[in-house]
């Protein structure tokens, strides 16, 4: 008899349902655990209600569009710069010594600490917001690219050179595809980090944007709306990371085991 194979989605759904149930119970019972209290946490029902209200208002589309545009602009810039810098640093000791120290120093600086400088450095608040999402995405992409490039089998490079490949051809034919799986990982992580810098970015100003909506709801003490904003960011971040991973696996077909070419 073949071993029973249980489908995995029931457990996944049950896990989500359990979280919701805990939330519902904790918020209606105003659970107070001393260290953390649910007294002021809105109930799922009120969040659902607030979410529905946002959906019915005309503002949701504008909020979504502004946020998506900022995240993607910052993310795209980070992807291009991160991959190019990563290739240079991974390939050349000179580039590593000259570029990596300042980057390593900038890396731990959180997005929120960039706000004042971002406002001072960029002409428009839009540009400074894009810069904040850029800082969020840059480092995961950069470091994963460096890691991917350094991980390329030196024998592959030696073989390609023995077969007549020059520097540029080696980069295009060996290094880039060899580092691709790692770059894709960096791009997927960067997508997520870019989203979680969004609230920070949209604290700067604006009228629209999910992050702005979340922050504004806090300042006017509209607690259910905060959670609506948080959930929206989580959902969008998850979806776009999933999209990047899917695109990435399409771009690296050999990486999926047993794939058939063409």
């Amino acid at each position, binding site marked *: 008899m073949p071993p029973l194979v249980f489908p995995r989605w029931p457990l996944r759904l049950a896990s989500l349902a359990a979280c919701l149930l805990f939330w519902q119970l904790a918020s209606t019972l105003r659970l107070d655990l001393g260290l953390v209290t649910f007294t002021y946490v809105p109930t799922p029902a009120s969040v659902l209600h607030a979410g529905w209200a946002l959906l019915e208002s005309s503002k949701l589309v504008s909020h979504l569009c502004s946020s998506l545009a900022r995240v993607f602009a910052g993310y795209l810039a980070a992807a291009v710069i991160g991959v190019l810098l990563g290739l240079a640093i991974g390939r050349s000791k000179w580039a590593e010594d000259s570029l990596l120290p300042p980057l390593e120093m900038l*890396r731990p600086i959180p997005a929120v600490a960039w706000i004042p400088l971002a406002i001072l450095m960029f002409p428009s608040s839009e540009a400074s917001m894009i810069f904040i999402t850029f800082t969020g995405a840059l*480092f*995961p992409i*950069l*470091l*994963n690219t*460096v*890691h991917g490039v*350094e*991980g390329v*089998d*030196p*024998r*592959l490079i*030696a*073989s*390609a*050179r*023995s*077969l*007549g*490949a*020059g520097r540029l*051809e080696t980069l295009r*034919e*060996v290094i880039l*595809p*060899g580092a*691709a799986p790692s770059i894709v990982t960096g791009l997927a*992580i960067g997508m997520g*980090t870019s989203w979680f810098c969004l609230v920070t970015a949209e604290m700067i100003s604006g009228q629209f944007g999910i992050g702005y909506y979340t922050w504004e709801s806090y300042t006017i003490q509209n607690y259910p709306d905060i959670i609506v904003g948080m959930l929206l960011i989580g959902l969008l971040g998850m979806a776009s990371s999933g999209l990047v991973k899917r695109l990435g696996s399409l771009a*690296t077909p*050999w*990486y999926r*085991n*047993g*794939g*058939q*070419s*063409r």
Partner: protein
Amino acid sequence: MSACEKTPEAGRIDGRQLSIRLGRGADAFEAVQALDFAIEPGEFVCILGPSGCGKSTLLGALAGHLRPAGGSLLVDNAPIAGPSPERGMVFQHHTLLPWRSVLDNVAFGLKMQGVGKVERRRQAAEMLRLVGLQDFASRWPNQLSGGMQQRAEIARVLINRPRLLLMDEPFGALDAQTRARMQELLLDIWTRMRTTVVFVTHDIDEALFLADRILVMSPRPGRFIEDLPLTFTRPRDASLLTSPAFVHLKRYCLELLRHEEGRELPRLTPLGLPTTEHTPLRIAL
């Protein structure tokens, strides 16, 4: 006559007082020392020696991946300046590009020469037929068995019509039967595409079966301790392995290598010292 059966013009190797150093600073050592040797064009030479004796190092220098520290190493009277498609290299484990089909891997050298897609694929298909892989052209390399991967690797190197075919224990990771088949296949290909072959191995049977001539190397620092011409008639087949002359020479080689026993050395590679472990992931969130 098909394009596969053209013969490269030359492929003479001259080594004079050749030394190669590996490692840096205080850890540096001479992997091979003061080698004097000459290999004729079209000759099939096996370099036989224990693990870590420096035979792969010599191969790396011939391929242009390692630079001699002293003496000279000439191919057709010209010093070696870096890797070149004229000196093809086959490693112990295949180095096919995982992201290219077997066909495009074999066509890689022609792509580097700027040959158009249709033409290079046609020639690559012909090379694949020569090594018996015509039915696997569209597979990914990791879908092939170890023996097939090495056959594809050999086809990929030979498509460049190299003057030298450099092989670093190419069948060392294969099971005994596959290895025997690959040895016969290699000899078959070599009779059709005559090129100078330098074949590194620590397997005495393999060296005796394949070579015109065996250069026996002592452990670090590597020196040639015997230059053994083989006169077994070609084409050779498995019956050779049990012939009295073969067994006699095998005993002699065993004796030579036994002298050098007792010193286990880490394996060297044609790219120098074995690489240290991969750098850990530096992930940032």
